[in-house]
C-alpha cells in the first residue's frame, strides 16, 4: 500500500457504449429488416395461394377428370395433372439422380485434375444456367420429332434440368467427407471402389439425398420444359411412355389463361396442390437427412 502504482486497475466490463453500441444496433436492425423484406413476398405468395385455392381442394378434386374450361367451380378436378406430375417427375428422378451422383463420384474421387473431369465440371456448371425452355426445345428436336409427344420426353427434359443440380450438390457433399475416412478405409486393404461405396457415399448420403430432393422439387414446378414435350392434354394418360400427357404446372398455365371462373378456381387449386407436394418433399428431405445422419451425431 505504500509503493507507488499499486492501485488496483479499473476493469470496465460494461457493454460498449457510444458509437460502437449504436452501430451494433443499426446492423442488427438492418439484418432483421432484410429478413422481413425477404419473408414478405414469400408470405404473400403462400397466403394468396392458400386463400384462393383452399376452397377448391377436396379428394374428388385431386382425383376427378379435367372438365371443360367452361365448367363451373366444384365440377371436375385435376386428377390427370396430379398423376402426370407424379409419373413424369418420378421418371425424371430415376434418370437424373443416379447419373448425377455417379457423375459427382467420378469428378471427386476419380477425376482429380485430368482434363475430362475439368470439362465435365465446367459444362455441368454452365448447364445450371441454361433456360429451362431450351431443355424442352432440345428434347423436342431430338426425341419428340421422331417418337412423338410423351411423358417420357417430358421426363427427359426435366432430367436435363435436374442433372446439373444433382451433380453440383452431390459433388459438394462428397468433398465434405474428410480425407481421414478414406485413408482409414484404404489402410484396411479396401480398393478404391470399395472405399467410395462403403465409406464415402454412406458418409455423404444425407446431403446427397437432400440435394436430390431439392432438384426434384424444382423439377416438379417447371412448365417450360414440358411445353414442347408433353403437349398438355386434359385426358388422363397413365402410360407415361407414349401419348401426350399433362402435369400440374402445365394445367396451372393453361387454366390461368382462361377467363372462366371455374377454370381459374381449378388453377388456384392446382397451384396449392403443387406447393403442398413441394412442401411434403422438403419435409421428407429433412427426415431422410436426419435418419442418415444418425451415426454422424453423438
Amino acid at each position, binding site marked *: 500500500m505504500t509503493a507507488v502504482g499499486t492501485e488496483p486497475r479499473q476493469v470496465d466490463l460494461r457493454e460498449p457504449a457510444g458509437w460502437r453500441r449504436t452501430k451494433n444496433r443499426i446492423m442488427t436492425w438492418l439484418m432483421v429488416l432484410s429478413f422481413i423484406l425477404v419473408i414478405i413476398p414469400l408470405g404473400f405468395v403462400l397466403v394468396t395461394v392458400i386463400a384462393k385455392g383452399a376452397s377448391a381442394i377436396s379428394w374428388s378434386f385431386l382425383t376427378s377428370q379435367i372438365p371443360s374450361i367452361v365448367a363451373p367451380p366444384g365440377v371436375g378436378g385435376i386428377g390427370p395433372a396430379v398423376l402426370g406430375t407424379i409419373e413424369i417427375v418420378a421418371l425424371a428422378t430415376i434418370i437424373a439422380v443416379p447419373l448425377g451422383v455417379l457423375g459427382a463420384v467420378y469428378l471427386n474421387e476419380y477425376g482429380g485434375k485430368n482434363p475430362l473431369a475439368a470439362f465435365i465440371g465446367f459444362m455441368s456448371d454452365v448447364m445450371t444456367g441454361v433456360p429451362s425452355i431450351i431443355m424442352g426445345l432440345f428434347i423436342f428436336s431430338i426425341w419428340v420429332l421422331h417418337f412423338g409427344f410423351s411423358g417420357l420426353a417430358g421426363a427427359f427434359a426435366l432430367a436435363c434440368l435436374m442433372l446439373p443440380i444433382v451433380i453440383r450438390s452431390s459433388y459438394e457433399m462428397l468433398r465434405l467427407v474428410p480425407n481421414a*475416412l478414406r*485413408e*482409414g*478405409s484404404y*489402410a*484396411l*486393404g479396401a480398393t478404391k471402389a470399395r472405399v467410395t461405396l462403403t465409406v464415402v457415399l454412406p458418409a455423404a448420403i444425407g446431403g446427397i439425398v437432400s440435394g436430390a430432393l431439392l432438384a426434384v422439387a424444382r423439377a416438379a414446378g417447371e412448365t417450360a420444359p414440358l411445353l414442347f414435350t408433353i403437349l398438355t392434354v386434359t385426358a388422363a394418360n397413365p402410360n407415361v411412355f407414349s401419348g401426350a400427357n399433362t402435369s400440374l404446372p402445365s394445367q396451372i398455365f393453361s387454366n390461368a389463361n382462361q377467363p372462366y371462373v371455374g377454370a381459374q378456381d381449378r388453377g388456384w387449386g392446382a397451384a396449392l396442390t403443387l406447393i403442398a407436394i413441394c412442401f411434403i418433399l422438403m419435409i421428407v428431405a429433412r427426415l431422410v437427412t436426419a435418419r442418415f445422419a444418425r451415426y454422424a451425431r453423438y
Partner: protein
Amino acid sequence: MDSPEPNLVKTELPKPAALQETQRAGAAFSGTGTTVFDAKNVSIFYGSFKAVTDVSLAIYENEITAFIGPSGCGKTTVLRTLNRMNDLVANARVDGEVHYRGASLYAPGVSPTAVRRRIGMVFQKPNPFPKSIYDNVAYGPRINGERKKSKLDEIVERSLHQAALWDEVKNRLNASGLGLSGGQAQRLCIARTLAVEPDVVLMDEPCSALDPIATGRIEDLMREIKSQYTIVIVTHNMQQATRVSDRTAFYSVLRDEKSDTRTGVLVEYGQTQQIFEDPHDSRTQAYVTGRMG
C-alpha cells in the same frame, strides 16, 4: 553438424530419467529375429522435392521399432512407404527398394490393396467411420468377404478385447463410433486394424492427441500384442520410445543451403537402450539428451 566440445563427448552422459525406471523396455527381445521389412537406399520424392534421402534399415518380427526425430524429418513419410499409403498422394515417388518378407513392395504388378491388408495402419488423429462401433470393427472383415454374423460377432469381440475397449462399449455396440472420447476412438481404430489380423501394424504418432492415461493404455496394448504382430511406431515422445520400443531409428533433417530445402535422413538405428544410453552419432546424442528439439 559440428560435434559438441570434445570433453563432453568423452564424459559419461547422465542417464535420462525415463530409462532409469523402465529398464525392462527393450531389455528382453521377444523378437524372432526374422526380417520383416528390408529397406535399401530408399529415397522419397514429392514431385521434384526430395523429402527423404537414402534410408536403409531392417525391421524385425515381433518387435516394436520406434522412429523418432524432429518435425519434418520424414518419419511419417518413411512409415507410409512401408504400406504403400504414399500412393494416395498425387506426385509421390519412391526410389530404392523396400522388401516385405522377401517380396518387393514396389515391383510392378504388386497390388497395394493386398499390401495394405497385411500391413495395417493407425493414424495420428483417430478416424472412426460414421458407423456403429460394431460396424467400424467389422468393416475390415466384411470387405474381405466375411458374411456370417456369428463369425463377425466373434471377430468384433476379440478385437475389442485386444484393444482393451470391450468392457467400455460392450453394451452399446450399436452406438455411433463418433461418440467416443479421443482415447476410446483411437482404441477403436486399433481394434479395427487388428480385426483383419494383419502381419504388421504401423502407428503414426497414435498417442499424440491423447491424454497420459489413454496413452498408457495404448502402450500396454502395444506390449501385449507384440508377440503376435510386428509394430512400427512414429513418435515425438522420447520417453514413449524408451518405454515401449525394442529398436529405435533416429531421423534428422539435412538442410541444403543452396536450394533452402530440408531433406529427411536416417541418422542412426539400433537397439533402444544403445540409442539412448550410448548414441554413436553426435546428432543423436544432441537430440536424445534434449539439447536439440
